[in-house]
C-alpha cells in the first residue's frame, strides 16, 4: 500500500495535480452559470495543460534536471538538463491562451452591455422573450 502510494502518487504528483486542475476547469466551463466563472474555468483548464507539458520536460533521474544552458564545465560536473522544447511550446500556447481569454472577456463585456447580466440562464431567458 505504502509502496503504491509512493510510486503512483508521490513520484508523479505533478501529473496528478494537473489532472485534478483539468477536471476542475472542465467542470467550471460546463456547469457554471456565470460567464466570468466559465472564463476562469477555461484559464484553469489551459494552465493545467501547461503544467502537464512542463512536467514532461523534466526527463532527468533523481537529481532533477537544470536549466538547459549547456557549458563544458557543467557537463564535467555531471549536471542533467531538462528538455527545453516543451517550454518553448508552452510559451506559444500561453500566447494562444491569452488571446482566447481576451476575446472571451471582450464578449462578456459586450453581452453585459446588451443584456445587463452575465448569468447564462438569464441571457437565454431574455433571448427567448425577444423571440430569437
Amino acid at each position, binding site marked *: 500500500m505504502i509502496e503504491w502510494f509512493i510510486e503512483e502518487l508521490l513520484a508523479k504528483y505533478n501529473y496528478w495535480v494537473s489532472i485534478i486542475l483539468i477536471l476542475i476547469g472542465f467542470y467550471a466551463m460546463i456547469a457554471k452559470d456565470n460567464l466570468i466563472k466559465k472564463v476562469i474555468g477555461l484559464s484553469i483548464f*489551459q494552465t493545467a495543460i501547461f503544467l502537464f507539458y512542463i512536467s514532461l520536460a523534466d526527463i532527468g533521474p533523481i537529481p532533477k534536471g537544470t536549466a538547459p544552458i549547456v557549458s563544458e564545465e557543467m557537463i564535467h560536473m555531471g549536471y542533467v538538463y531538462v528538455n527545453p522544447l516543451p517550454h518553448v511550446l508552452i510559451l506559444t500556447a500561453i500566447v494562444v491562451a491569452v488571446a482566447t481569454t481576451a476575446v472571451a472577456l471582450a464578449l462578456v463585456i459586450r453581452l453585459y452591455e446588451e443584456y445587463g447580466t452575465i448569468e447564462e440562464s438569464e441571457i437565454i431567458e431574455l433571448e427567448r422573450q425577444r423571440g430569437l
Partner: protein
Amino acid sequence: MLIVEQFPVLVVAISLLSAFTILVAGLVNKKSCCFISIATILVQLVMAFYILNHVLTEGTIHYWLGGWKPPWGIEYVVDALNAYVLVIVLFIALICAIYSKRSIEHELPHKLVSFYTVYQLLITGMCGVTVTGDMFNMYVFLEIMCIAGYALIASSKIGLKAGFTYLVMGSIGACFVLLGIGFLYSVTGSLNMHDLSLLLPPLYGNRVVQAAFVFFFTGLGIKMAFFPLHTWQPDAYAYAPSAVSVIIAAAMSKVSIYAFLRVLFSVYTAEFIRIYAPLTTVISWLAAIAIIFGSVYALAQYNLKRMFAYSSVAHVGYIMLAVGICTSTTLGLTPAVMHLLNHAVMKGCLFLIAGAFIYKRAELWDIMKFPGLGRKMPYTGIAFIFTALAMCDIPPSAGFVTILYLILAFLEAGQFIFAAVILFSVIVTFFYFFHVVEMMYLRVGVEEEIEKERGEIPMSMLIPVFLLAALCWITGVIWLMKIPFPILDAVNSMFGLGVVP
C-alpha cells in the same frame, strides 16, 4: 522567376501581412480595406493553383522553415490533399470577400476595418492548418482560425451569445487537441507528422497513444461539429453576419475535417484503423445518426439559416460516414474528399442566398415571411432553386455525384443500412427545400407589396451567387467526366487506401 516550393509559406505570410496592412490602411481610407482583402486572396488563390499543379506533376512539396531539418525544425508539407483543400478554402474566401463588400457595409457599417482585419486572420489560420506538417503548428493555426471565427460570429448583436457558446466549446476542443499532442510527444519525443507516423506503429498497443487518439477525435469533432458535439453550430451559423456564415459554413468546417483526416491518416495510419476496427464502426454509426438527426431537425426549422446549419450537421455526417467505411472498399476516401468540394460549393451558395434575403429586408430570415419573395427577387430566387435541386441530388449536380459514389461504396462494402440512411436523408432534404420553394413561389403575397418591393440585390452580391449556383452543377459534371480524379488517386495511394486486404 517564382519558385513554387516557397509558395506554401508565402500563402500564409501574405495573408498575415495583409491583415496588418488593412488595419493601417483603414486609418486612411475605410473603403480600401475590402479591395486589399480581395487582392490578397486573389494572389493566394493563384498560388494555390500553382501549388496544386506542381503537386500533381512533380510530387509533394516540402518546405523547411528557416532551413532547419525535420524532425527538429517546423516543416510545411503540401501533398495532393492539402493542395486540393487549399484551393477550395481560398476560392470560397474569394467569393465571400467579393460578396461581403456590400453585405458588410449594410450589416456592420461601423466595423469595416476590424472586420477585414479579422477576416484576413481567419484566412491565415485556415491556410496555416492546411499547409503545415507539424502537429504543434497545426494547433496554433487551428486556434488562430477559431479565435478569428469567434470574434467574427460575435460581431453582430444577435450573434453574441452564439459566439460565446462557440468560444467555450471550441476552447475545450482546442485544449483536448493540445493534450493529445502532449501525449504523443511524451511517448515519441517528436512533433513532425511524418516522423510521428514512422515512430508510432510499434506503439499502437500503448494506452497513451490510444488516449491521444480519443482526444484528437473529440477535440476536432467539436471543431467540425460532428454529431453529439455539434450543439454550438446551429446558433453560430444562424446568428453570424451573412458573409461570416458563408465562410465558416463552407470553408472553416472543411478545414477542421481536413485536420482530422490528416491526424487519422498521416499521423496514425490506415494500419491503426485496421487494427482497431471498432473505431470505424463508431465513426460510421455516429455519422449515420448525425445524418438522420440533422435532416429531421432541418425539417423543423423556420429560420432559413438555422435550417441550412442543421443540414450542415447532416453533411458533415456524409463526409464522416465516407471516412468510416474507407478501409473496406476499393473507393477509399474518394466520396469523402469529393464531398469536401461539393459541400463547400453548395452550402456556400445557400448561405450567400440566405444573406441576400436578409440584405433585402432584415426579417427575411423567417420562412413564414417568404410568400411572394420569388417575384420580388426573381434572379436570386432562380439561383436558390438551382442550388436546392443540387442539394436534392438531381443528376448531374454536385450532390448527386457524392450520393452516387457513397452508395457505390456502401454496396461494395455490403453496408446496405447506410445506403438506406443516405436515401432517407435525400428524401427529407427534398421535403425541407420544397417547403421553402413552396413558400417563395406558390404562396401568393400581397400584390401591391410585391410591386413596391421588387428589386434585386447589388451586382457584386448577385455575381457570386450565380457563380456558385452554376458551379453546383458544373462540378457535378466535372466529377462525372473524371477530370479531377488524379487528386483522388493520389490521396488514396498516399494513405494506403483503396486496396481491400
